[in-house]
């Protein structure tokens, strides 16, 4: 009992220890802007000096981190959109820094730390108040569902994302088209999209009656837009494939088969025949009639040759067996016909009937009997007289 309690306490303690770092993991965030060649001091410990701002290969800022007990520090180049860069001071404080935006003479950073952050000193460089803003749009398109029948409507979704740092304006959408399909609610002009924002546009695409069935390509959506400063740019989505299927008609469709086929039998012997009627259509068939045509020389020995079925559901089969007998030698044909609605299907069973084995050798047997008898007689006589 005691041991059990101790165990429970230990487990509870372990659970608490697991939870503790999570509750303690509060993240302090602060935004700072540093002028070129200026620096700030965080919590009287960490120095962040902006050495340079670059714009080739995207906006970047070259930063020098150092601290009282780490006077050398490290120099890093941060890019917009990069993951954060870590620096740990000589006294053990850690910050994560991301470049939020850059201007020609300064840069704005987002700094995260587990400690509360204070800018304890600021040494100004020359900070340009007006940032250079560049919008950057991307567009993706999905069609749902991507296969549809003629007459149906599919949903087209356009997702437009501004990954730049400036608002995109005068956005014009030039949506690709599949012949004989109709767009419903597809805008040609789109409202401005702020930096980092995402716009979602949905519209219906109706597939007209004359559309050619098959795999149709929908050409890319093209976006033309401008930055606030009037610089124009464009982007486009991937093209999409829409499969257009012929309208499905609900109809029963029956097949009939005979098993086995091409059989060699002996006259007078049973010829078993299994007839299978399958509804391969997509609707139930009402009133199914089977007609059998036996040619002369073949007769029905057992089973019902011409059954009637009230209904056969799609993908369901009806199977029945009959036994035939061929009385005459030669090739025989059995024709089975299944009839439903106004349609019919035919199956043919061909088989060859051969003379019975006995009949074939009849002459020989008859000839052999007396010879055999004579032989037996001779043997018997020989034995009678051999001692």
């Amino acid at each position, binding site marked *: 009992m005691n041991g059990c309690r101790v165990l429970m306490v230990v487990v509870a303690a372990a659970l608490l220890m697991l939870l503790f770092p999570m509750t303690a993991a509060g993240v302090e965030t602060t935004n700072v802007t540093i002028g070129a060649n200026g620096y700030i001091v965080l919590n009287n410990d960490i120095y962040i000096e902006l050495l340079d701002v670059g714009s080739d290969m995207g906006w970047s800022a070259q930063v020098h981190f150092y601290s009282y007990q780490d006077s050398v520090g490290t120099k890093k180049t941060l890019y917009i959109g990069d993951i954060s860069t870590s620096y740990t001071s000589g006294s053990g404080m850690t910050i994560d820094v991301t470049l939020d935006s850059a201007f020609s003479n300064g840069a704005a950073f987002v700094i995260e730390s587990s400690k509360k952050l204070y800018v304890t000193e600021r040494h100004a460089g020359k900070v340009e108040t007006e940032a250079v803003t560049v919008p950057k749009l991307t567009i993706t398109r999905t069609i749902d569902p991507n296969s549809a029948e003629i007459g149906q409507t599919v949903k087209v979704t356009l997702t437009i994302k501004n990954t730049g740092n400036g608002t995109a304006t005068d956005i014009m959408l030039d949506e690709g088209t599949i012949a004989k399909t109709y767009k419903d609610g597809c805008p040609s002009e789109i409202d401005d999209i702020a930096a980092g924002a995402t716009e979602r546009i949905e519209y219906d695409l109706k597939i007209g009656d004359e559309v050619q069935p098959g795999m149709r390509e929908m050409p890319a959506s093209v976006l033309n837009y401008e930055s606030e400063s009037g610089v124009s740019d464009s982007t486009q989505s991937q093209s999409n494939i829409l499969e257009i299927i012929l309208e499905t008609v609900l109809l029963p469709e029956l097949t009939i088969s005979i098993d086995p086929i091409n059989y060699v039998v002996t006259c007078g012997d049973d010829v078993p025949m299994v007839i299978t009627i399958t509804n391969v259509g997509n609707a139930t068939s009402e009133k199914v009639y089977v007609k059998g045509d036996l040619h002369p020389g073949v007769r029905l020995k057992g089973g019902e040759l011409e059954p009637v079925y009230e209904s056969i559901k799609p993908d369901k089969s009806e199977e029945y067996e009959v036994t035939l007998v061929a009385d005459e030698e030669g090739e025989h044909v059995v024709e089975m016909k299944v009839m439903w609605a106004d349609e019919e299907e035919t199956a043919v069973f061909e088989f060859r009937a051969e003379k019975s084995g006995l009949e074939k050798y009849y002459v020989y047997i008859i000839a052999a009997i007396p010879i055999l008898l004579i032989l037996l*007689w*001779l043997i018997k*006589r*020989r*034995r*009678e*007289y*051999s*001692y």
Partner: protein
Amino acid sequence: MLNILVLGLGQCGNRILDAMNREAFGRGGAFAKYYTRQKFPASVKTIAINTAINDLKGLVDTRAKDRLHVPHLHGVGANRTLGKRVFEDNKEIIMSEIDKRGAFDLIFIITSAAGGSGSSFAPLLVRELKETYTNAPVICITVLPFREEGSIFLQNAAFCLKDIIDEKPTGVLLVDNQYLKKYAGDIKSAYDKINNTTARRLLFLIEALNSEMLMVTDLGDLKTVMNGGIGIGTMGFYEASKDSTIKSAILGSFKPSGLLFPTNVYKEGARAMLIIKGDKKYLNLDLITKTIEELSVEVGQVFKGVLVQRGRPRVLSLFTLNSVPELEKLYAAAAEAIRFERDRQDQSKSQLDSAFSHIEDLEPIY
């Protein structure tokens, strides 16, 4: 229908029996047995009995089930004493085999007198058969050896014949190999010829006994004939040429050339039986009667049977004799042989004794 039993004893008896079985197939040749059945002129049962299995195997036309091997592997080697013992040891087997074949009206025993098995079995069988089948006449057909076959065969023939006569069969008919040697140059074909002739005559007789005849002779007559004289006789046969009279045919059957044993029928005959077969046109009954009357004066009682049958007249004569000079000669020769043999044996014995006398008082020294 007469029920007749024919027993062939020993090699000689077996062979004559086989010849009878062959004759019963008619003119079919060697393959007759494959497509036809034996047709005996009566209900004839045959059994070949022998101690030598090889002799039985050598038979051709006798059914396997009609061959009885009396176990003493390869014959008794002409030893009649041994033969008699083998018979006594196997009497039940032999008699039960005979018994299986039913009842009989007439029994023939065919044997050579000179061998071991047949000659020793024959007298003992006569005794047994007479006891079992009291009403059936038992006739022994006894074959005498070639005289040059050696003293043992001669002795055997002498003692066998005596033993048979002692058992008082209905009759003994002699067949003399020596006399019939004239038939062929070599022994093998002589045997065949003698066997066939003997077989044919026996069947001729059987047929006559079993048939409706114009002039009747029967089993009773046969008995009477066989009882005549000293109970020993033989057979003669004659087939007439186209235009000879029935009389000459009858007389022909008495001629020495047709006899199976050398005898002068006119002088020694006691009783006779004549069986005449032929087309009716030849069978002048008056002439037959007259001829037979004439014969009776010399031969004694002559019974006759006449059978109408296709073909030229054929006559079988069967006699018993009052005296048999030829037999006497044979016995004399046998006695001579025995004496000679005994002297020789004595001589050899004394010679051996005198040889042994050299070491009489001595002991071997090592």
